[in-house]
């Protein structure tokens, strides 16, 4: 709609042709929004160039500081964000609109109002798009409550059972992330808190601070069960397995390996081959460290 000014605006434009150059400029801009592929190609090229340099320097045996400085110079999507937002606003219903929203959520991990508008575009115009699959993982790892609202809407309205199944599992994962984030906020010291606020925004952190992690875990279990109990969802292929298998594993984790649950016993042997059991250590506070010397 933004591409086509209404009759009134056209009339105004005609009458103010010389008086309002800024209006004209705006109209010209809107009809000439660049293609998403142009930005994608620029980003890919910048990334490739950085990657080549990084590999070369890293393999030349440069010292740690040089390498870590170079690592920090990895091209960020943020540099392209303004142009991507322009596409999102100009043609939300097009494939480019979907690509723009997915880029914002997956590459830049936008927060606040930008997160809201990207989700809004996907929900209004792309609830059945195959492209949605590409953003599920990023959304699973985002504790922002608006993400759950979006996923719930899509899982209720999409006509594609694959999208509904995948949003259901993304909801399970989102609520698990959310429980972990709620606990992390409660425990965070100054530095860690600054990092969390930087990722999620202070509004979201304030909301999560008042939430109950156990309630989030209950929601996660509920969505795992929704996947497991729907034969069609459970059979969907997902990361070297099926959604059903992944949901079963997540549900097991929620029931036995999350905070507040009695840890499963470990019955085995130590490095020297002597038998040992985790339950032998009852009565003591125990730190279990899964480690390897690599």
């Amino acid at each position, binding site marked *: 709609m933004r591409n086509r000014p209404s009759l009134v605006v056209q009339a105004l434009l005609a009458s103010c042709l010389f008086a309002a150059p800024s209006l004209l400029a705006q109209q010209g801009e809107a009809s000439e929004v660049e293609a998403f592929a142009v930005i994608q190609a620029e980003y890919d090229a910048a990334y490739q160039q950085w990657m080549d340099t990084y590999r070369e320097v890293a393999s030349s045996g440069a010292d740690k500081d040089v390498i870590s400085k170079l690592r920090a110079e990895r091209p960020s999507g943020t540099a392209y964000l303004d142009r991507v937002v322009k596409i999102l606003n100009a043609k939300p219903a097009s494939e480019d609109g979907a690509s723009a929203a997915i880029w914002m959520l997956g590459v830049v991990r936008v927060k606040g109002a930008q997160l809201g508008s990207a989700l809004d575009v996907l929900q209004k115009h792309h609830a059945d798009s195959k492209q949605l699959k590409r953003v599920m993982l990023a959304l699973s790892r985002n504790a922002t409550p608006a993400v759950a609202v979006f996923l719930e809407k899509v899982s209720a309205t999409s006509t594609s059972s694959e999208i509904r199944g995948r949003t259901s599992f993304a909801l399970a994962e989102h609520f698990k992330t959310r429980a972990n984030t709620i606990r992390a906020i409660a425990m965070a010291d100054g530095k860690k808190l600054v990092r969390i606020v930087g990722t999620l925004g202070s509004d979201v952190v304030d909301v999560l601070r008042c939430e109950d992690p156990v309630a989030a875990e209950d929601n996660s279990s509920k969505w795992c069960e929704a996947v497991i109990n729907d034969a069609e969802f459970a059979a969907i292929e997902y990361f070297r397995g099926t959604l059903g298998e992944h949901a079963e594993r997540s549900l097991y984790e929620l029931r036995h390996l999350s905070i507040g649950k009695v840890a499963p016993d470990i019955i*085995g042997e*130590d490095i020297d081959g002597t038998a*040992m059991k985790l339950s032998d250590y009852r009565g003591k506070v*125990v*730190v279990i460290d899964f480690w*390897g*010397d*690599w």
Partner: protein
Amino acid sequence: MYPHERSLVKRLSGKPFALLGVNSDSDRDKVKDVIKEKGLTWRSFWNGGSINGPISTAWNVRGWPTIYVLDENGVIRFQNVRGEAMDKAVDSLLASLENK
């Protein structure tokens, strides 16, 4: 990792506390060398010589290191706390155990 854990174990010697490793290296003899070299005084379960061993599989471990902190009843109380956060977590559990 090693220096922090060494000092934690040393500081809490005599307290109702244990650090237990679950080691997923592939070569047992090499692990024994590491334990000797780095002065690791705590025991580790042998995960069958693989990151896909029986213990890490049963515990759905997908990243290393993964940390769990259990209270005296074997209840999971903290996950993936490192450094100072691990110290704080353990100290808080020990304090509430001692006040019982």
